[in-house]
């Protein structure tokens, strides 16, 4: 099975109005080569699900600045003033979800769970419109799964089958984002043969990955 493709070969996958999940935390562990391709492709009305919207000139922020994003679901947008500006003018919708809730909503989608019950957000405006469920006399908010059409994942060392290892803090949202979409694209910082990655070091099983591209240097 050959999953390794050229970045140009990915273009036909993407369409206006898609929901795309992107790994990374403040552009650490973010698949920047695929993002640059999306900026060139200039598809519109995207819903982006990610921890944050990066910086105006780096990572996910480029999609925002280029006016390609209709809605963002993230935990933090403070490092990209352009996201805040577009939210205030109404050009873009922003749904803020606490970081621990956001990752669990993504994990729930990829794990076949109907949602998660979390105490985070109790007594705040995050309760609005959500079901409150009491378990053993403790209240929780029901948070619903988040899934995407395409997930963009960044692996530090990736083998030809898509098995991936994440270095240091590049792991963040990546392993769960790799489970929550119909199509999963892995951007490899370093692309190796299967026998070169120790089986024990694999953090995302390659069976989840549809396409692999090598990061542009």
């Amino acid at each position: 099975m050959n999953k390794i493709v050229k970045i140009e070969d990915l273009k036909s996958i993407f369409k206006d109005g898609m929901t795309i999940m992107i790994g990374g935390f403040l552009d650490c562990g973010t698949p920047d080569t695929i993002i640059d391709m999306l900026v060139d492709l200039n598809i519109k009305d995207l819903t982006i699900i990610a921890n944050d919207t990066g910086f105006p000139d780096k990572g996910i922020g480029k999609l925002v600045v280029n006016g390609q994003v209709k809605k963002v679901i993230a935990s933090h947008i403070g490092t990209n003033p352009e996201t805040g500006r577009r939210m205030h003018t109404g050009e873009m919708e922003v749904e803020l979800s606490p970081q621990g809730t956001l990752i669990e909503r993504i994990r729930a989608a990829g794990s076949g769970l109907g949602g998660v019950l979390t105490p985070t957000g109790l007594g705040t405006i995050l309760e609005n419109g959500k079901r409150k469920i009491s378990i053993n006399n403790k209240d929780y908010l029901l948070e619903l799964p988040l899934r995407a059409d395409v997930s963009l994942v960044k692996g530090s060392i990736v083998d030809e089958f898509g098995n991936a290892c994440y270095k240091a803090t590049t792991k963040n949202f990546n392993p769960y984002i790799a489970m929550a979409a119909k199509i999963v694209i892995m951007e490899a910082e370093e692309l190796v043969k299967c026998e070169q990655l120790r089986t024990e070091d694999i953090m995302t099983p390659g069976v989840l990955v549809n396409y692999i591209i090598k990061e542009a240097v």
Partner: protein
Amino acid sequence: MVTDSKLAKEIIAKRVAKELKYGQLVNLGIGLPTLVASYVPTEMQIAFQSENGIVGMGPKATPEQEDSDLINAGGQCVTVMPEGSFFDSSMSFALIRGGHVDVTVLGALEVDEEGNLANWIIPGKMVPGMGGAMDLVMGAKVVIIAMQHTGKGKAKILKKCKLPLTAKSKVNLIVTELCVIEVTAKGLVLKEIHKDTTIDEIKSVTEAHLIIPDDIKIMDV
């Protein structure tokens, strides 16, 4: 009154550091709370968490040590201790919500008599988002607010928070450059004051009612 902002932050960070106990797992928020680490002796064996996926975070990286794959939750290049570990965001927040984090230190826009905290949004003006703050305040065993006593001359310790809350009734201790305040079921108790201030001065810059015990101490900073 301490008017120098740099000195104020130093006083706050020094005093917060004294709250930490041997071997604890501690999460320091972005900004002022980060300074606390500088005042914690290594023999305390405190493990610092960074919610983007580290336990056992070391000091900020020197230019030679910088590795763009190793950042803290504020996006700065950091180092990791020999006993440190890396993990994904689900594990990181399981540690936080699951009660494995002993202490979290965060800044505040407002904090009130019931221990409510507001620090993630000023509607219509500044909407950075809550990031990990809501989970941290909900899940950590002890929540310490480290902040300058007032913001742009206005009181931040209020009878009732006006801004949208980060969490309800979760704050345990408030440390400012002027004093240390404990949040109790009866209200806010003034525990310690800085040697260069007075109780009246603190009252004049605090909107909340302060309970004044007989045995107020001088802040050990």
